[in-house]
């Protein structure tokens, strides 16, 4: 335990740095002040310590390489410019992304529209039938007919509806009475799909059987 009333040199040296810092208890400070008044050696240590701090705290003690400031300024400027370019680009990012989304949406929408468009010439022929045209269907049949078509079966169970309704209900046009709608404008230019060919063959076969 240090007796603060009378500190010896060793005790003073241990506290001399804290004394210079001002980081010391008041009682210790008083004891050290008393000691410095009477001890030339410790006063020398105190003065020397203060000189060391004063000298080294001087900015002139910091020696930087020639051109350090210019190189630092250049590096910072390059970084800031690069950030600026990045920022300028990123400012366009949101509008570009929005435009891309819009374009993509349009394309997707078009693809949906195309998806419900007709996929074959045969379907296009169906599309040639006036949708409001009155047609007849009969129970147990798969085809819809022009009223009075001789190929209508179960005529006692026939009902009249529009071509649009018939198609919507899954009926297909009679290849005989609807022939004028089903044939392509130029048969030479239309390559029939195998399914279509088979159906036509079937229709022809059925026509021959009914005759």
């Amino acid at each position, binding site marked *: 335990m240090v007796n603060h009333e009378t500190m010896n040199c060793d005790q003073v040296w241990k506290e001399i740095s*804290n004394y*210079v810092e001002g980081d010391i208890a008041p009682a210790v400070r008083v004891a050290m002040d008393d000691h410095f008044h009477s001890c030339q050696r410790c006063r020398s240590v105190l003065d020397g310590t203060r*000189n060391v701090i004063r000298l*080294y*705290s001087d900015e002139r003690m910091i020696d*930087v390489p020639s051109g350090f400031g210019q190189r630092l300024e250049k590096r910072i*400027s390059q*970084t*800031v410019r690069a*950030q600026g370019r990045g920022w300028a680009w990123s400012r366009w990012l949101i509008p570009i992304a929005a435009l891309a989304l819009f374009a993509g949406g349009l394309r997707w929408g078009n693809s949906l529209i195309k998806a419900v468009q007709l996929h074959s010439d045969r379907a296009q022929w169906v599309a040639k039938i006036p949708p409001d045209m009155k047609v007849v269907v009969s129970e147990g049949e798969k085809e819809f007919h022009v009223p009075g078509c001789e190929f209508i079966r179960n005529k006692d169970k026939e009902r009249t509806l529009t071509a649009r309704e018939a198609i919507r209900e899954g009926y297909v046009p009679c290849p005989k009475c609807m022939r004028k709608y089903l044939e392509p404008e130029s048969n030479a230019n239309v390559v029939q799909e195998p399914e279509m060919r088979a159906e036509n063959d079937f229709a022809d076969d059925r026509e021959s059987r009914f005759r």
Partner: protein
Amino acid sequence: MAELNVVINDPGSGTREQDLIAQVQRGHHELFYELVRPYERRVYAAAMAILRNQTDAEDVAQEAMLKALANIRQFRAEARFSTWLIQITVNEALMRRRRERAGMIEGIDDHRDDEGEYTPRDFADWREIPSEALERKEVRQKLAEALASLDRKYREVFILRDMEQLNIQETAEALGISVASVKTRLLRARLMLRDLLAGGWDQGWFSRLPFEKGTKPW
């Protein structure tokens, strides 16, 4: 006797710096160099204190500045901007040193007990050395050599506290050591430098200074 009151030329004390900080934080990064220019020497010195290599110190100083720019929004006004910069620099330098020394065995002095007492050796009558002495390159050189001769742990604490003007707590945080260790190391560093420079007087470092005949500068 009154304690030493080192007057620090802190360019950050005015509102100009606060204004610059606010502008840079708002995105005016082109003003960043103007903000850090007053501290560029201290930042370099902090890096040099840790790395002791000019090329590495300059590189780390630049990296630290760019890191400060990248994190400028994290700076809070209650801290000193200079301290914040120095702490970033010390951290960068310590990381660089760890990377470069990975796998190497630390010097034995780094683990020596701090508590050993240091006894001053020179008790001649000293007087204050005039600051004009630092105008002379050889004086600065001798002071730098004396500082460089200290063990790393003493040198680092001394530079951060007495040259970079971090306080004891900030120095402890920057170096990752206790406040008690900072105080012990600081005491030893100051006393060792004092003795080293006392020897310099006898070798004529200050011979052309206008001291009274037969007295030492401190």
